[in-house]
């Protein structure tokens, strides 16, 4: 009896009901990036062409949405995404519309802005330009209006790194201007800002102003890239908690590269760091990826900021992991991602055509132009929508 064998059987079932991928990869349509997405949008590769000219603003022309842009409305002026067919805007535009009230023997002022977070390349910046396209469609009463374009430094209490203003006149067509931007540093976070300041004396008045395009371009001493290489969108459930991990690296010794996850609220992970071709940090921190608001098309993106001196390829294999709970808990899914970092032939920037028009900088009016991201609305309303 001591050697008797007793076997007990417990029944179990494991049922699976597969679902469509709730988080998918998308092509960000960024200049200098060639993207190949898998058939179910659960894998992706991107060939990234570094350049000595980098365009830092995403969706610069507001073409089909206000994706990537944020708005800060004024007391009377609201900010919308709209199609300005009368003015001939290219696709959509950011519209600033509102009426300042009558005020007996006094001046009323108001301002409103759109802005986008950007990060400058981690390379010596030789020059920078801001190209804008705008139109003042309507201005009534004893009212004057000024355009405001600038680069806001969010460090500490915040302040303008560079700003320009100029008086506006009503026009049936758009004006394109390119300003020389100064006083911005490498490898820093900034906000690219465009807006309007309006003063009305006694009568009040209505203002209708459009910004159709804003692009901040920098020329660097080395070949660089700093932008999204893949977009991420949550299509069902969530939020999900995502991070990137390096699973393979074949890097040239001249490669300095940071890879970061960022969500639509501009929350950034700590980066994967490659320095001198060697891995310094092999994974990002965790970033929450919620479904985006209706006016924003993506939940987040994978950003690459790199510097290379030679035209030699480097390949990085990554895994994007997302889970239904923080800390790697719940259901976790892994997608394979491949990045090929490949500068173009020496001396050929991919975006070198710029016409310097030059601006007429006006003394800044900081009391009117403070940007507080905490008070900003994360998207532009669609006027009449």
């Amino acid at each position: 009896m001591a050697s008797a064998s007793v076997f007990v059987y417990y029944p179990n079932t494991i049922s699976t009901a597969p679902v469509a991928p709730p988080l998918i990869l998308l092509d960000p349509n960024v200049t200098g990036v060639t993207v190949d997405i898998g058939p179910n949008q659960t894998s992706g590769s991107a060939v990234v062409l570094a350049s000595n000219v980098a365009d830092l603003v995403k969706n610069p022309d507001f073409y089909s949405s206000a994706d990537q842009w944020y708005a800060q409305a004024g007391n009377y002026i609201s900010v919308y995404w709209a199609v300005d067919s009368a003015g001939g805007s290219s696709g959509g535009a950011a519209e600033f519309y509102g009426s300042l009230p009558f005020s007996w023997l006094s001046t009323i002022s108001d301002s409103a802005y759109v802005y986008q977070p950007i990060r400058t390349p981690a390379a010596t910046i030789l020059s920078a330009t801001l190209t804008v396209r705008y139109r003042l469609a309507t201005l009534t009463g004893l009212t004057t209006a000024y355009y405001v374009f600038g680069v806001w430094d969010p460090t500490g209490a915040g302040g303008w790194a560079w700003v320009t203003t100029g008086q506006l006149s009503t026009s049936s067509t758009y004006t394109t201007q390119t300003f020389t931007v100064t006083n911005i540093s490498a490898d820093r976070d900034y906000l690219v800002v465009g807006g309007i300041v309006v003063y009305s004396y006694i009568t009040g008045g209505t203002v209708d102003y459009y910004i159709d395009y804003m692009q901040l371009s920098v020329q660097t001493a080395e070949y660089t890239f700093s932008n999204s290489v893949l977009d991420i969108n949550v299509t069902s459930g969530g939020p999900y908690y995502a991070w990137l991990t390096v699973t393979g690296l074949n890097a040239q010794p001249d490669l300095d590269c940071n890879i970061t996850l960022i969500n639509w609220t501009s929350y950034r992970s700590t980066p994967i760091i490659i320095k001198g071709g060697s891995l310094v940090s092999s994974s990002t921190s965790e970033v929450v990826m919620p479904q985006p608001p209706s006016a924003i098309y993506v939940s987040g993106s994978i950003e690459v900021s790199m510097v290379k001196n030679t035209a030699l390829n480097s390949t990085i294999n990554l895994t994007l992991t997302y889970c239904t709970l923080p800390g790697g808990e719940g259901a976790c899914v892994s997608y394979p991602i491949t990045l090929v970092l490949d500068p173009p032939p020496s001396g050929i920037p991919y975006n070198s055509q710029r016409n310097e028009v030059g601006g007429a900088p006006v003394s800044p009016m900081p009391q009117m132009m403070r940007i507080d991201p905490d008070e900003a609305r994360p998207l532009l309303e669609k006027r009449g929508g």
Partner: protein
Amino acid sequence: MRNTKALLALLALAATASIAFASVFVYYPVSVSVSPVAPPIVFEEGSNANQPDLGGNTITVTLGANQTSASITVHPTYQTTYYKNITIINNTDTANAYYITIRVNTALPAAYAGSQLIIQTGTGSVTVDLTATGDTVIGQIPAGGSWEVDLSFSIPEGAPLPAPATASIQLIYSNSAETPP
């Protein structure tokens, strides 16, 4: 006289046959006492049981009334979906270790190739292929020990999502290392 001899021969044959076919029954008293005990091995919910699954679903884990059965429903997607610590195998017997075997009676279809049940034994992990029937010896769960159960599913990109499916498995435990019948 000749008839008498024949009759006697037939009677002798009949008597012999009746002795050869006789049934004899002998009865020994045997007592079988059944004394059920609480199950020493039980399932418990893991930390991710009934937590959010993909696409707004729930990782459903339902345990039997006496924690001697478990029913799990999950919602994987393309690529690799991993479910960590879904259930726990708990040895409530603090005096005895038991040998654990997982038997897959009904496997998942081939479209789920690479799908695994993974048991974390504390000193390593043992995987069970959920797309093939058969037994996998997990090892000996120590007295008072507990093991975590994970699930991993691989659905290759480019093919339609597989139809929902169910794998039927048995957890077999024994005081013996013998192969379970």
